[in-house]
C-alpha cells in the first residue's frame, strides 16, 4: 500500500509538471485559436536564457532579463508570424508554430550554447518522509516535487483570476470566442495576442525553471512539449482546469503503467502510453474532458 501511494504521488507530481507545459498550450489556444507546438521550444529557450544570464548577473536581474527576452520573443512572433497569417486555417498556423519550434531550437542553442547546464535556484532537494506513522517506512517525497506543485498551484490560481476577473482576461476570452466580433467592439487583436504569447512565454519560463532544475537545462527540455500534447487532448484544448486534471491523469497513468504494466510487456512504454490513453479518449469524446463542444457548420 505504501509503495502504491508512493507511485501515485510520484505520478501526480510528474503530472503537475506536464500540466505546466500544457497550460501554456491552452492559454494560447484559448486566446488565438493557435495550437502552439512551439511551447516546448519556448520552455527550452527560456530556461537556456535564464541559466546563461545567471552566470553574468544576480538571480533577480537574470529573471527580469529573461522575462524581457520572452516579451521580445512574443512580440517578434506576433509581428513576424501571426499577423501575416491572420484568418488562415488553423492547420497553417499549427505548421507555422512547427517552424517556430525548429527556429527557436536552433537559435537558442546558437545563442546560448548546447551543453547541459545546471540550474540551481536554491530549491531544497533532499527527500522528506511523510505519513511515517501510518505505513511502515512512510512515503518518500522529494521536496523539489513539493515546491513544483506549490508553484504550479499558485500559477493556476493566478491565471484563473487573471482570465476571469480582469479586464484583459475578459478581452482574451472575447477574442477566443470570435476574432471579428471582438475587434468590432474595440478590442485590439494584436495587443491581445502579444499579451497572451508573453504570458505563455512566462509560463514556459516557470516550466523551464522547474524542469531545468530537475534534469539540467538541455535540449531534451524541448521534447517535453510532446508529453504535453496528450495532456491537452485529454483535458480539452480550451480549458485551464482541463490542462491540470489532464496532466495529473497522464502523470499517474504513466507511472502506474510503467511500474505495474511495464514489466509484462517490455518496459519503456512511457513514451506512447499517454498518447494511447489520449487517443482512446478522443474516440469517445473528441472535445476532451472539459473542452467546449466542437460544432461543424457548412
Amino acid at each position, binding site marked *: 500500500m505504501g509503495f502504491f501511494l508512493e507511485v501515485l504521488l510520484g505520478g501526480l507530481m510528474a503530472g503537475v509538471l506536464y500540466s505546466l507545459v500544457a497550460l501554456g498550450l491552452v492559454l494560447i489556444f484559448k486566446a488565438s485559436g493557435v495550437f502552439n507546438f512551439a511551447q516546448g521550444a519556448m520552455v527550452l529557450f527560456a530556461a537556456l536564457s535564464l541559466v546563461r544570464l545567471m552566470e553574468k548577473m544576480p538571480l533577480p536581474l537574470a529573471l527580469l532579463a529573461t522575462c524581457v527576452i520572452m516579451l521580445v520573443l512574443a512580440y517578434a512572433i506576433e509581428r513576424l*508570424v501571426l499577423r501575416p*497569417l491572420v484568418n488562415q486555417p488553423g*492547420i497553417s498556423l499549427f505548421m*507555422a508554430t512547427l517552424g517556430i519550434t*525548429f527556429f527557436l*531550437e536552433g537559435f537558442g542553442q546558437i545563442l546560448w550554447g548546447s551543453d547541459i547546464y545546471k540550474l540551481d535556484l536554491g530549491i531544497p532537494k533532499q527527500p522528506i518522509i511523510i505519513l511515517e506513522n501510518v505505513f511502515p517506512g512512510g512515503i518518500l517525497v522529494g521536496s523539489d516535487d513539493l515546491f513544483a506543485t506549490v508553484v504550479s498551484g499558485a500559477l493556476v490560481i493566478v491565471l484563473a483570476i487573471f482570465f476571469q476577473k480582469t479586464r484583459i482576461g475578459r478581452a482574451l476570452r472575447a477574442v477566443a470566442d470570435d476574432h471579428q466580433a471582438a475587434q468590432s467592439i474595440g478590442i485590439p487583436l494584436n495587443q491581445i495576442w502579444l499579451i497572451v504569447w508573453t504570458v505563455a512565454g512566462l509560463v514556459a519560463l516557470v516550466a523551464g525553471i522547474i524542469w531545468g532544475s530537475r534534469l539540467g537545462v538541455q535540449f531534451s527540455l524541448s521534447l517535453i512539449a510532446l508529453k504535453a500534447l496528450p495532456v491537452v487532448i485529454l483535458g480539452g484544448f480550451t480549458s485551464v482546469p482541463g490542462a491540470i486534471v489532464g496532466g495529473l491523469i497522464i502523470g499517474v497513468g504513466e507511472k502506474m503503467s510503467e511500474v505495474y504494466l511495464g514489466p509484462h510487456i517490455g518496459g519503456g512504454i512511457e*513514451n*506512447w502510453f499517454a498518447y*494511447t490513453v489520449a487517443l482512446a479518449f478522443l*474516440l469517445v469524446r473528441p472535445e476532451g474532458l472539459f473542452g467546449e463542444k466542437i460544432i461543424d457548420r457548412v
Partner: protein
Amino acid sequence: MFYREVGEFKSTYAADQVVFPIRQDRYFVWAVVLFAFVGVPLFANPYWFSAILIPFLILSLAALGLNLLVGYCGQISLGTGGFMAVGAYAAYNLAVRIPGLNPLVAFLLAGGITTVVGIFFGIPSLRIKGFYLAVATLAAQFFLDWVFSRIAWFTHDTPSGSLNAPPVTLFDFTFDTPVRKYLLCLSFAAAFAVLARNLVRGRMGRAWMAIRDMDVAAEIIGIRPLYAKLSAFAVSSFFIGVAGSLWAFVHLGSWEPLAFDVNRSFSLLFMVIIGGLGSILGSFLGAAFITLLPLFLNQFPAWLGLHWSTALIAHLESMIFGALIVFFLIVEPLGLARLWRIAKEKLRLWPFPH
C-alpha cells in the same frame, strides 16, 4: 510565344484528357525522364548517387505519399517516420523469413502491410481532425518506434537491434552499384508518380480534395468520408511503406530503429509544405530542397574560408528550416510548385504580356 495551347486541336476524348495538355510540356517531361534515366548515369559520380540522388528519390516517394494524405485529403500526419519503419521492417522480415522471396516483391508486400497499419491508425481521422489528428498520428509514431526497438521478433532477435538488409536482386541481376541502385529508385519513383497523378485526377482524388476543402459539405454532396479518408490513408501508407523499405534496403543497407524517428516525420512534412501542398511536382521539389540544403550548408562555410563546428551548422540548419517553413506559409502557401506554375503562366504570355 511557343509555349501555349493555341494550335493544338483535340479530336478525341483521350487527347482531351491527357495529363499535360500542352505539347511542349509533354516534350519537356519526356526529356526530363530521358535525362534522368540515361543522362544522369553517364555524368554523375558515385558520391552524387549515394549522397544526393538516391536519398532524394526515395524521400520524394515518401513525400509523395504524405502529400496525397496532407495535401490532397487534408489529413495531417506526423507518423510518416513510423510508417516508413513499418515498410522497412516488414520488407526485412518478409525477405528473411520467407526463403526465395524476391526483395522487390517484398517491397510491394511491405507496402501492403503498411497500408493495413496505416488504415488502422487512420481510423481516428473519422472522428477527429486537424491538430487532434496530428497528435493521434504522433501516437502512431511513438508506438511504432517502441514496437520496433523493444519487440525482438521484428528485429530477428539481433541483440543490438541493428539490421543488415539482404541484397536486392532481380533474376541474376544484383542492384549493388550506385548506378543500379539509382535506376531502381528512379523506376519506383517514376512509376509511383504516374500512379499518383492518375489517382488524384480520378474519382478517388476528387473525393479526397472535396474532403480537404470542407468535409461536412463533401459529406452532404454524397462523398462518404469513411471511404475517402481511409483510402487516402491506405494509398499514402502504401507509398510510404515502399519508400521505407527502399530507404532501408537500398539507401541505408543496415539500420536501427532511430533511422525512422519523429524527426524523419517532421522533415517529410517540411518537404511537403516547402514543395507544395497538393502537388505531385511539389513533392519532388520539396525533397530535392531538403536533401540539398544540409549539403549546401556543410559546404558553404568552407567556400567562405570559415571553420564552423558541426554543432553550429546543425543548429543553423534547424533555424533555416524553421524560418523557411514560416516564410513559405506566409508568402507562398502552395510552395515551390506554385512558383513553377507562375513561371509557366508567365512563359505562356511571353513576350507580349498584355
